């Protein structure tokens, strides 16, 4: 029995310790560095804590921590607050668009014959396996002024001068909807697929129109999928970097891009840490909601 207990303990401990060391501890470090100041040194911030220098030195270093970076990030003079706001707006609008585009597809998949469903599911998942970067890149060639979309519209005679889509917010919306669509479709599909068809038949027998039946039966029953899909798309979209960077314009303000710039161009590790901590605070409510949805989905059958 002792060996068994030991084995059990090991199965928990290895992934647990791994995540503590490489997921939780890094956040504490980010928090600590967000309270530090930039320095021209290696590493480029101070204070640094060295256990070897004893308790007094550590205590002195603690005194040097300050919330200065947060003041900088939260001041109206800088673009950070605007960037948080516009990221939330862009992610929010994209999530609604995703739901509008994804729901009819998931619905049609769930209504198709049992034989066809695995193939359709495969077709939705396949683009998700191909590189995210490649999929975003593909849109540059389509949306650019001399790109394929403009060539096509020109050919049809719909336009006489090229549409400016690349390097605008519209391109960012297209990019997000395109890249995240499988994440929206899959939870919706799994909720809709479980639905009992006899409920709709009963409604029809009792004189309910198909449209009313949809709103009274299908939609409420699909809500868990709607929540899961929306959170799964909204949260990463808020911190998105690649899409606004490649498809957006210079005036597309998103916090992921700002954080990246702060880190790699301005080389301020402390300010980027403060930006990351605040972003996490903004996202903590949706993340906790998502965890509850996920937990119920996997564990509470």
């Amino acid at each position, binding site marked *: 029995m002792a060996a068994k207990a030991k084995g059990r303990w090991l199965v928990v401990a290895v992934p647990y310790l791994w995540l503590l060391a*490489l997921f939780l501890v890094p956040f504490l470090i980010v928090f600590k560095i967000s309270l530090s100041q930039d320095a021209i040194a290696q590493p480029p911030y101070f204070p640094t804590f060295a256990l070897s220098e004893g308790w007094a030195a550590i205590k002195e270093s603690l005194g040097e921590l300050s919330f200065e970076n947060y003041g900088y990030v939260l001041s109206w003079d800088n673009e950070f607050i605007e960037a948080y706001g516009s990221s939330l707006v862009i992610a929010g609008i994209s999530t609604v668009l995703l739901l509008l585009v994804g729901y009819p597809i998931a619905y049609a998949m769930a209504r198709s014959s049992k034989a066809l469903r695995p193939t359709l599911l495969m077709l939705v998942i396949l683009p998700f396996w191909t590189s995210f*970067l490649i999929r975003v890149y593909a849109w540059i060639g389509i949306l650019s002024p001399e790109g394929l979309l403009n060539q096509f519209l020109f050919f049809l005679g719909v336009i006489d001068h090229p549409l400016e889509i690349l390097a605008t917010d519209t391109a960012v919306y297209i990019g997000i909807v395109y890249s995240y669509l499988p994440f929206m479709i899959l939870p919706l599909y799994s909720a809709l697929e479980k639905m009992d068809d006899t409920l709709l038949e009963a409604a029809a027998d009792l004189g309910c129109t198909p449209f009313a039946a949809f709103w009274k039966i299908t939609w409420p029953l699909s809500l868990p999928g709607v929540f899961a899909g929306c959170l799964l798309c909204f949260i990463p979209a808020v911190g998105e970097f690649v899409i606004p960077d490649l498809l957006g314009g210079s005036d597309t303000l998103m916090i992921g891009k700002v954080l990246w710039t702060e880190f790699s161009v301005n080389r301020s590790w402390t300010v980027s840490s403060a930006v990351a901590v605040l972003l996490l605070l903004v996202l903590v409510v949706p993340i906790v909601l998502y965890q509850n949805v996920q937990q119920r989905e996997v564990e509470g059958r």
Partner: protein
Amino acid sequence: MDRKLSWFNVTSLVLGFAFLYLPIVLLVIYSFNASRLVTVWAGFSTHWYGELLRNEQLLDAAWVTLRVAFITACVATVLGTMAAITLTRYGRFYGRTLFSGMIYAPLVMPDVITGLSLLLLFVAVNFDRGFWTITLAHITFTMCFVCVVVQSRLVTFDRSLEEAALDLGCPPLKTFFVVTLPIILPAVVSGWMLAFTLSLDDLVIASFTTGPGATTLPMRIYSQVRLGVTPEINAVCTILIGIVTVVVIGASIITKRQEVERQKAERLAAAG
């Protein structure tokens, strides 16, 4: 819901899949363009594929990426499966909420936060940045995806099989390898593949955690894409898409065949 599709259903499927696939198809077609200008068609040519084979930087990056992805997928599959067993089989234990939180949060955590926090960890402990830091970072976020995939299989399977083996005196470890693993194997395999492709695909986390000397393919592609669209990049992308498509479809056919055979064996056992 097993009924005839309405015209609305068919339209949404057709438009939806056109939206999902058209950009990829166009990208592939234009990789065979003879012209350097990506958007002007100048005849069929495999010129850019030949050019690729001479681009050593790109080949180096591809090799680094494949090694990172392979190690990541293997380690993440083991860790993720362990985590999945913990979450489905161990009931309540001290610190469980924190554990499941740490599993689900990385699934939606923006890449920039994960990347930055891991970089700062590696700097704080003075770990030389490069190949191994990218690999450690990738294992950390992909193991959570593996865990969710394996977990969804574990909750649906019949536990009495495991209990029977244990009752008959089979040690837990052996029970896992003889009874549990064969049943959840399709999920473990798709977990491995998911970890592999997520690692292959990652740009942001790798850019944060890398050091001198380790450049991955997405990083190389990204730096070239910023300079504009080139047919050479289209060719790289086409090769990657081709590999992924073949592997995913192949794996799904294999797991489906296994599933069918298993069901046949079960039926035979029940009849006999």
